[in-house]
């Protein structure tokens, strides 16, 4: 079994506001999607969601606010799935609810430490 990271990319859009009911629905969609992958035993690690607060640190102690200062998209989280092939991982990523909110998923193969 190979591992792939699904990296969630969002555009931060302050104009979009969700009602509590919509938030609840989004939460359910994500949970159902993750639960569905876990039911296929393809969830290797539920990963983490990343908050908006943060900083970017560069050479010479240059610190800028926010991870989204210079790129249009920001990374909002990641999970790790286990499938035989990249194609299968991509298939899983297609079910992600992120597209409704304008985001996208980057699927990357994880380099195994033990060869």
């Amino acid at each position, binding site marked *: 079994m190979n591992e792939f990271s699904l990296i969630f990319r969002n555009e931060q859009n302050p104009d979009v506001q969700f009602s509590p009911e919509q938030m609840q629905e989004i939460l*359910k969609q994500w*949970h*159902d999607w*993750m*639960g*569905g992958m*876990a*039911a*296929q*035993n393809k*969830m290797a690690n*539920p990963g983490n969601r990343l908050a908006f607060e943060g900083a970017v640190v560069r050479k010479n102690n240059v610190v800028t606010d926010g991870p989204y200062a210079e790129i249009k998209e920001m990374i909002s989280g990641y999970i790790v799935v286990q499938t035989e092939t990249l194609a299968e991982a991509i298939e899983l990523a297609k079910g992600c609810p992120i597209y409704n909110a304008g985001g996208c998923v980057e699927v990357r193969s994880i380099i195994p430490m033990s060869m």
Partner: protein
Amino acid sequence: MKSEKELIPHLFRSEYSKITAVLGRLFGFEHIEIAEDIVSDTFMMAAETWGQKGLPDNPVAWLYAVAKNKAKDYLKRNQLFSDKIAAAVAYNSPETYEIEIDLSGKNITDSQLQMMFAICNPIIPAEAQIGLSLRILCGFGIEEIADAFLTNKETINKRLFRAKEKLRAEQVKIEFPDKEEVASRLNTVLTTLYLLFNEGYYSLSQNASLRKDLCLEAMRLTYLLIGNEATNQPAANALLALMCFHSSRFEARLGQHGESVLYEEQDTSLWDDELIARGQHYLNKASVGNAISKYHVEAAIAYWHTTRTADKWEHILQLYNTLLILEYSPIAALNRTYALSKTIGKEAAIIEAGKLGLNGNYLYHCLMGYLYSGIENTCAIANFETALKLTKAKADKAQIRQYISDLKNG
């Protein structure tokens, strides 16, 4: 008043494990068989003496007195052995040097807890942990254990023998773990008790009273953990809550012929409200701290099953999502798909079920048979027929045949 015929098995079950735990702790795993032999001899003597002379006034006190004397005799006779034990005993009673065997309630409980931690040790396989627990902690006979595991006495004897050898070889001590270790060691103990309960709850054995006994023993041991300050942890409470909720449906889920009755078809008047209330009590006690164990999630699922609200299946679905993300198991994956059929309908659930990769699993084909029923009956029948080939349990076979004939007769 119970007759002797009933009394001895009852006492055997409840007292065997208590005396064995106390003597076992005294003798250690090196000589655990001697402890077991002494207790067996004691009960043999009780059966013979009581049979001839009638019951003593206090049968339990009689058993303790005889077991104590037998143990003391053994220790006196075996010099090498008594050197080691005498040193420990002398510390407790420096003045008399008399060997004292403490069968007080507190020492019995302590000994049983220590024995539990010693047996539930990952260096021996889970099956052996359950077998040893049943033998030493619950006082089950070898034949009963064989029956529960659907195997023969020889296999169980071998399994227990090997397990004891291993515990001896690894010099496992019968003692309470250090404070820092309790949490991680408790996990192993809870896993074994969980499996012990499941062995009774989901066993294919046709012996319904034996299955119930397994569940009750698992609950009794979990209850012991909750009675002890160090082990009264949220996960232990969650596990006991889960067991209470499950056993509340014990009567309702077994049909007249020993077949399992689907949740939907159960007579809810047979659910035990008192056990449900107890489950809620322990689930509340489990809801402290930040750690969430799979027992918390499973107990919450079992709780929702006992309710009759309209949105319960949505709650159950979300809890199965959480459970699967915590830890995958085929049974949870199948149950999640069942919950899905209750929230988004059978057609959508069929598509999800197809992705599970559980082709060839008996319960998978039962689920598919259920999902296709009323949607595409030929597929339903095909799945039930596959399931039929995959199970050996008579009662289950009969039930599946019933489903097939219902489908064929429209």
